[in-house]
């Protein structure tokens, strides 16, 4: 983004000086003469509009935009432009990971991204930073971020950041990015991460790649690999000329690993940042959170998922799937057909129109395995398929297949596992 005062419109009224939360605007004497070659034939210095004009100290300005609506004469222009375009990119440094938190608890995907980000930062010989937003009590969670390898934590606190809302989060993180200039920013490809990243990238002028399944550094650039065309092809994407290079990454693609040399929290490695959030950022109000009673384990975070498909025949047979999931301590998944038929709620749906999952074990029961379903689960560590049809496409991605009736095998498996557990 860039900001400038349109001198032909500025009257020197000083309203913007009062509106700026950072003291970045001062009044200066109106320049004696302003070059006239600019706006085609327009009045250049518009004489008689006051002796003083506003000037913005760009070293202090965070581009927060608070001054723009304060000006009654539309004399302040805040323009979105691609970050770092055509400029020296070397002052963009550091790999940032957005530490997604819900209800004050940092989500697993943040630790996975820190683990992967550590490798990227090592390749780039730069530091790994976590960005944690929340109300002031979130500070208690900081040690977890150091535990997974963060060199530094940007702690952004404000009462309005307790729960996620697009506008205040975008405002807060955009201010931090503008000020501290990271070269890479990674976010989890969760509903929250994708909602935030898409808006943030436009605000700060970053290239953004969605839903990556692979990251690497080549020639100093982030190589972002992701599926497209419903998982039929893979594309590698890079952002050569603009910064930061932003990507959302699917949960469970990378493993989280605690580091040996954990940094101790100090005044140097915790950068405290208090964003300026305006009324305009608080227009969307959360009225209610509706729990889904049938969701016992979050699919996206589950280590084991047992999924049911059309082969179940009717809604009540999902009980078989639930029993097997329970004995394994896993989550219940479902194919689109079963959700469309109303057998189970949409929170359980795996696949292109549902969730993308990547558990250690995925057991597909009575699921044929259309490309849309495979797109959502084929990167699971171990896939087991139970299906009557030996030609079902699910067997193409399964590590272990059972050609047979799920009504025979699923209860048998549940019983045997129970026996083993004693």
């Amino acid at each position, binding site marked *: 983004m860039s900001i400038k005062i349109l001198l032909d419109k500025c009257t020197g009224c000083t309203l913007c000086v009062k509106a700026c939360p950072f003291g970045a605007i001062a009044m200066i004497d109106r320049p004696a003469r302003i070059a006239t070659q600019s706006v085609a034939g327009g009045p250049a210095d518009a004489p008689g509009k006051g002796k003083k004009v506003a000037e913005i100290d760009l070293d202090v300005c965070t581009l927060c935009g608070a001054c723009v609506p304060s000006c009654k004469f539309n004399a302040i222009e805040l323009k979105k432009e691609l970050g770092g375009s055509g400029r020296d990119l070397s002052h963009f440094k550091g790999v940032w990971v957005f530490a997604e938190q819900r209800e004050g608890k940092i989500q697993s995907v943040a630790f996975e991204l820190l683990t992967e980000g550590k490798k990227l930062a090592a390749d780039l010989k730069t530091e790994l930073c976590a960005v944690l937003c929340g109300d002031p009590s979130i500070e208690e969670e900081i040690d977890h971020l150091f535990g997974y390898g963060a060199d530094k934590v940007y702690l952004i606190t404000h009462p309005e950041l307790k729960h996620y809302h697009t506008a205040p989060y975008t405002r807060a993180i955009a201010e931090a990015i503008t000020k501290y200039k990271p070269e890479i920013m990674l976010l989890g490809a969760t509903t*929250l991460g994708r909602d935030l990243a898409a*808006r943030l990238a*436009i605000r700060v002028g970053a*290239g953004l790649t969605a839903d990556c399944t692979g990251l690497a550094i080549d020639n100093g650039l982030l190589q972002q690999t992701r599926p497209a065309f419903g998982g039929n092809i893979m594309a590698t994407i890079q952002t050569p000329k603009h910064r930061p290079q932003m990507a959302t990454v699917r949960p469970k693609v990378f493993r989280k690993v605690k580091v040996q040399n954990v940094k101790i929290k100090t005044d140097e490695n915790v950068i405290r940042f208090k964003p300026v959030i305006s009324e305009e950022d608080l227009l969307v109000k959360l009225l209610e959170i509706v729990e889904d009673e049938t969701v016992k384990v979050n699919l996206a975070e589950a280590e084991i998922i047992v999924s049911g498909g059309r082969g179940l025949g009717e809604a009540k047979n999902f009980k078989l799937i639930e029993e097997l999931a329970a004995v394994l301590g896993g989550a219940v998944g479902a194919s689109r057909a079963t959700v469309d038929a109303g057998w189970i709620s949409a929170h359980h749906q795996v696949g292109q129109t549902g969730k993308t999952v990547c558990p250690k074990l995925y057991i597909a029961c009575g699921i044929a395995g259309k490309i849309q379903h495979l797109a959502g689960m084929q990167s699971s560590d171990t896939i087991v398929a139970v299906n009557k049809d030996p030609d079902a496409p699910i067997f193409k991605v399964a590590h272990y297949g059972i050609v047979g009736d799920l009504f025979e095998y699923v209860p048998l498996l549940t019983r045997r596992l129970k026996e083993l557990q004693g």
Partner: protein
Amino acid sequence: MDIIVCIKQVPDTTEVKINPETNTLIREGVPSIVNPFDENAIEAALQLKEKHGGKVTVITMGPPQAAEALKTTIAMGADEAILISDRAFAGSDTWATSYTLSQAIKKLGKFDLIICGKQAIDGDTAQVGPGIAEWLGIPQVTFAFKLETNDGKAKVERMLEEVNEIVECPLPAVVTVVKQMNEPRLPSLKGMMKAKKAEIKNLTAADIEADPTNIGLNGSPTNVVKIFTPPPKGGGEILSGEPEEIVNKLIDKVKERKII
């Protein structure tokens, strides 16, 4: 209630096949369709119009043949359809696409609501809807499955990973919708007749006064450097034997992999 729906014409990815010899995508003969989530967006807009009156305008950025997708939306009941098409838009990523659509929307004048599908099934980014909202400086509500409007406000239910969220949002705003929103109607016979005769207005880069640095390849910070097909999965081991035996084998295999 004036509603703008943004759509994309996409290849039907369910029909995409891989050539087993070259391991590349077979694009020939793959039909082009209106992105399925965008059909949910149109249906949502039509239902709001039926309730509150007003107008539904559908826009798309794409090559000239994307006019076909717009005609489908007229057949469903949209009042007007506008194609934003120009060679200068070629190679747009989500930055350039959201900019271009937002410029066109500014040109269209007053609106109360913009509805988009949550994502397109070819790119799967879910980035253009929020991008439009940011360019226009209005609120966004993503992953909606219920949408009511009343008195300049929208009440929206969002589908998240484990829970649903009910939010209230002042209009104008951008709402992106998931499949559970509704069941899109089929084009009516009358609608198809109307679509046949319908004139699709075309807007160029000049018409929408686009900044050349923000459109097409120039305005796209991301570049695709490589496309490849994932190695074909050969399939794993089919376990054989008596049912008890198979189940025991499976448990052993899973144990070997240290999962349980």
